[in-house]
């Protein structure tokens, strides 16, 4: 075999292998997605939205408690995490730019984005749950806020830096004070980008289970008091799926389906925003 033939053969082998591995990988991923959709749609019905949890075997059991709990926990976390993250990102981009301090905050935020979320749960247990003496929806929100903060901070920072400095200079030339320049010019210019970051941040924390296990804990019944243990879709899913009862497992799949569709939806909207921004 000549050298050229050998190279062509190696090329064919490697290309076949990588096509195969791509197919194997995609098969597994679509298998999971398929299972999720089939089981999810199969388990969906109106009672899921109209009824709260019930003991196994009851016909009238649903996920209303978990849906409401999830909305409240994630809602409070968003309400706290978004403004904090945007303001912190503003400081980095508009006040300290490339200084050592700014770079350190950026690096630490990047690391925190990949840090194990269960550790955040343990931390919030120590600072909120233990002193209060019981699990609570608030504690869950605190954990999610801590996880969301670096995500919003970094996207805001990046998006504000994309705003052309000529816009800022034009506003300064008109005599506007810095805070007005930021609020009325810079934020407006980066609106779509910041919103994208917020959507991705919410999508990320909405799927978190580990940090909620020992902060908001769980509740099988409808509860709207953030001061008490509270159900979330993720923890409910975990408890129902690991239970031996078939009807609970079915509810678990319904929860998995609803949550995934919500998260995929947010990701797709964020993507469309980004595409529009690029298209401009």
């Amino acid at each position, binding site marked *: 075999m000549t050298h050229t033939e050998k190279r062509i053969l190696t090329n064919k082998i490697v290309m076949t292998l990588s096509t195969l591995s791509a197919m194997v990988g995609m098969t597994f991923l679509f298998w999971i997605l398929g299972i999720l959709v089939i089981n999810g749609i199969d388990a969906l019905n109106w009672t899921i939205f109209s009824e709260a949890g019930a003991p196994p075997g009851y016909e009238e059991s649903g996920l209303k408690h978990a849906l409401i709990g999830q909305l409240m926990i994630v809602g409070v976390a968003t309400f706290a995490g978004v403004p904090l993250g945007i303001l912190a990102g503003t400081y980095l981009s508009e006040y300290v730019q490339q200084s050592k301090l700014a770079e350190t905050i950026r690096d630490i935020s990047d690391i925190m984005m990949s840090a194990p979320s*269960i*550790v955040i749960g343990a931390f919030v247990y120590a600072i909120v749950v233990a002193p209060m003496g019981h699990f609570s929806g608030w504690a869950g929100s605190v954990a999610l806020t801590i996880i969301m903060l670096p995500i919003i901070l970094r996207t805001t920072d990046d998006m504000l830096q994309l705003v052309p400095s000529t816009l800022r200079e034009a506003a300064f030339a008109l005599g506007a004070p810095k805070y007005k320049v930021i609020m009325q010019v810079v934020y407006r210019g980066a609106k779509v980008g910041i919103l994208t970051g917020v959507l991705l941040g919410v999508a990320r924390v909405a799927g978190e289970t580990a940090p909620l296990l020992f902060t908001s804990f769980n509740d099988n019944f409808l509860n709207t008091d953030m001061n008490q243990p509270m159900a979330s879709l993720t923890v409910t899913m975990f408890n129902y799926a690991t239970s031996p009862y078939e009807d609970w497992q079915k509810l678990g799949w319904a929860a998995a389906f609803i949550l995934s569709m919500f998260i995929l939806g947010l990701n797709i909207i964020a993507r469309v925003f980004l595409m529009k921004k690029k298209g401009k």
Partner: protein
Amino acid sequence: MNLILDKIFAHTTKFIALGVLLIVAWIFTELFQQSLVSIQSSGFDFVTQTKWAPNLEKFGALPAIYGSVVSTFLAMVLAVPVAIGVAIFLSELAPAKLKSPVGVSIELLAAIPSVIYGMWGLFYFVPIIRDIVGGVGISMLSAGIVLSIMILPFMAAVTRDAMNTTPDILKESAYALGGTKWDVIKDVVMPYAKAGIIGSFILALGRAIGETMAVTFVMGNVHKISLDLTQPATSIPVTLANEFNEADTGIYYSSLFELSLLLLVISFTIISIAKFYFLRRKRLGA
């Protein structure tokens, strides 16, 4: 008036930005303080002893550490070649019509919460493992495989991004010299994107070692070191997820906090290595 508002705004943003650093420092110190009881009573035995028996107040974390290392190693061994294959397929092989839909769906799969991978593993994958290798199916092996599937989309997406940074002109020059696709990938793309690819693999490793929900379903939380991969095992996050709410004594809690601290330090170190040695951030606009 404007001057005052200006100062207030500047100081508020500064205060919150510094707050981020403070929170991270607080996490470390709080976990350390909560671990003190355990550190004082077990010392180094904590990481070298293999017996974890909370009722006897014996806390040896070696099985959990072993489980974290082995399951993550398994996941990496399985996911790295497939991720490279997917990345080569997406960046060099796939027809233009497939590139974007397959690429986007991989990125979207990376956004699916890990608890769903765990649930799929428990109901659909564990029975297959049970049929093939015997045992209960809940095992180190299942955990490693489910973990590898969970990190695959992230790894494939970032590897593809790293490969795509190779300038077309470099690739075209190599093709013009008569290189095959594999020659170009091996001698042009890989050397160019090496740092980015290795960095993203280490980053994926850092994420995998702290992953809780994908493995909690399928690992079993058994504190035993077994060379047999088909046996149930445990890892640091699995122990935390299973036992945190059951801990009843101060020292039990403290040991779990020490585990959390250990996990945080390990993943912080791994992620920092990925970040500082391999993935120097590209500044936007610069």
